[in-house]
């Protein structure tokens, strides 16, 4: 199972980075979503992989799983979900306003190009 989870994180991260490097809003936002999925699974596994173990301490339970990564993942999921919505709205506004969905500065506009 370790191999499966690790390769899933790796593949999602690689695909996410590839898409982020496309420098157009749609692929970049998709890539960001993949990266956040990868990081969520990664955070989840940071408490070690255990199957069928409860996350709370009880007297009759000897094997339990760490509850803290689950709380961290929940926070991370909420934040990344909200951020994706925000970036979709801003990206949509920018695209509708300037009819261009490049992320990087375009040299031909002369407005923001050149130095960075």
């Amino acid at each position, binding site marked *: 199972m370790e191999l499966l989870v690790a390769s899933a994180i790796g593949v999602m991260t690689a695909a996410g980075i590839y898409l982020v490097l496309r420098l157009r809003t749609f692929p970049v936002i998709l890539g960001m979503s993949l990266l956040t999925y990868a990081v969520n699974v*990664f955070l989840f596994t940071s408490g070690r992989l255990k199957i069928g173990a409860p996350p709370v301490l009880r007297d009759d339970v000897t094997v339990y799983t760490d509850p803290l990564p689950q709380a961290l993942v929940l926070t991370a999921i909420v*934040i990344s979900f909200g*951020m994706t919505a925000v970036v979709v709205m801003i990206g949509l506004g920018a695209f509708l306003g*300037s009819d261009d969905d490049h992320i990087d500065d375009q040299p031909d506009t002369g407005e923001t190009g050149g*130095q960075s």
Partner: protein
Amino acid sequence: MTHWIVAPIILPALLAPFIVLAARYHIGIQRVFSVTGVIALIALAAGLAWSVSDGSVIYYRLGDWAAPFGIVVVGDRLSTLMVLLTSVLALFVLLYAIGSGWDNRGRHFHALFQFQLMGILGAFLTGDLFNLFVFFEVLLIASYGLMIHAGGNTRLRAGVQYVLFNLIGSTLFLFALGAIYAETGTLNMADLAERVKLIAPEETVGIRVAAVLLLLVFAIKAALVPLHFWLPSSYAEAPAPVAALFAIMTKVGAYAIIRVYTMIFPPELEVTSGLHDLWLLPAALVSLAIGMIGVLAAKKLDRLVAYSIIGSMGMVMVAISLFSPAGIAAALYYIVHSTLAGAVLFLISDLVRTGRGSVDLSTEPPMLGTALTAGMFFAGAIAMAGLPPLSGFLGKLLVLDAAYGNTLMVWIWAVVLSSSLISVVGFARAGSVVFWKSHGAVAAEPDEDRLRPSVLSYAAVGGLFALLALHTVFAGQVHGYTTSMAKELFAPEVYKSTVLETPGKLSKPKEKED
């Protein structure tokens, strides 16, 4: 246990929804509440800074859960100084936003402003790495709204860049946190500092990766070359008061580096050896050089100021990456100076925009209110370029002095001094084009965009200058304070023992460790 330490986070957190819900359509009421809130923050911050000025550490457990398990808010001299700096800066920025009418050019400026303050102050006060992430997100979410305040296509496009770059930064932060948690099983800073030392030398792969990832995240925040690409466009396109407030945001990155890399991964730690002097110092020197060359190359005033921010962050990071008490003391002195100077310059570039209709570095007829604006630009440029008599010069001397005897001393001195010269030339060129040559030019057509800046705008900029002057006059006292702060940072026993040994719910730290 004092409850006051959590008040700088709670106050804006309550004020912001109140402004949205109750005063949504009344800009006057919003302004009153926002300014009152910031003044109350200054009083709180001053009180907190006073109460820890003897070297004690104030500490608050939310829900009374003991340290490694619960969320903690910690105030020592460093964090309270940053809180005080933030709230004072926020007051003048807010006054400028009101005076120039920026807050009325879009919705919810004041609510977002308060949320932004909550995030920044929370990031300074938290004693827990995951909450540092959460407060980073709070300040970023608010900053996304502020950055595209008042709209416009160029601003939205710069906003997309800014948001996406920071989202990638946040993702990296989460990877770093996951790796740290997997290696140590805790995210509380004081607890981490104890546990990182215990990791066996042959099992440090994970923690090394985590330390480097964490440094990358903070370097993105601090706009260290080569991770600075988000800064010029977004700071230049953001509304000027917002950009002035953002001057403290790069310092959040610097603060996080100081905090984490003196306490959790100190320079003498085997795991992260080489990270500070081999990687951080050259990157800081390159940032300093690139920033100041950008000042010389910029075609617009706002972009020029944005590059000078990168340059001054380079200077701060040079001082930090020495990782000696003298270096950190100089860095803290310079952080206060560069925050104020950067904010002043952004506000002045907006005065120019108001009086002249554009911030292009081209010859145009004299702007409205040119004498006062030109005088202020002159003083601001002196401060940022680090010429006497203002505090930039003293800060630079302290950095040079701290670097004396370092193995890379020749490089540090050469880059600091030559980049100062370049920035002087850059600022002189901009000033002469914008202010001097304008007297010969004739207006092509009357321009309705030109307005005389209001008295309150000038008063806000003047207030920041007064702070810079105070920072210069009381340099001895301030530097003495930052020196004792730096000593405390390198021997954080009080911090650790206060956080870990104060009893609370679930507190049996000795038995819990396995």
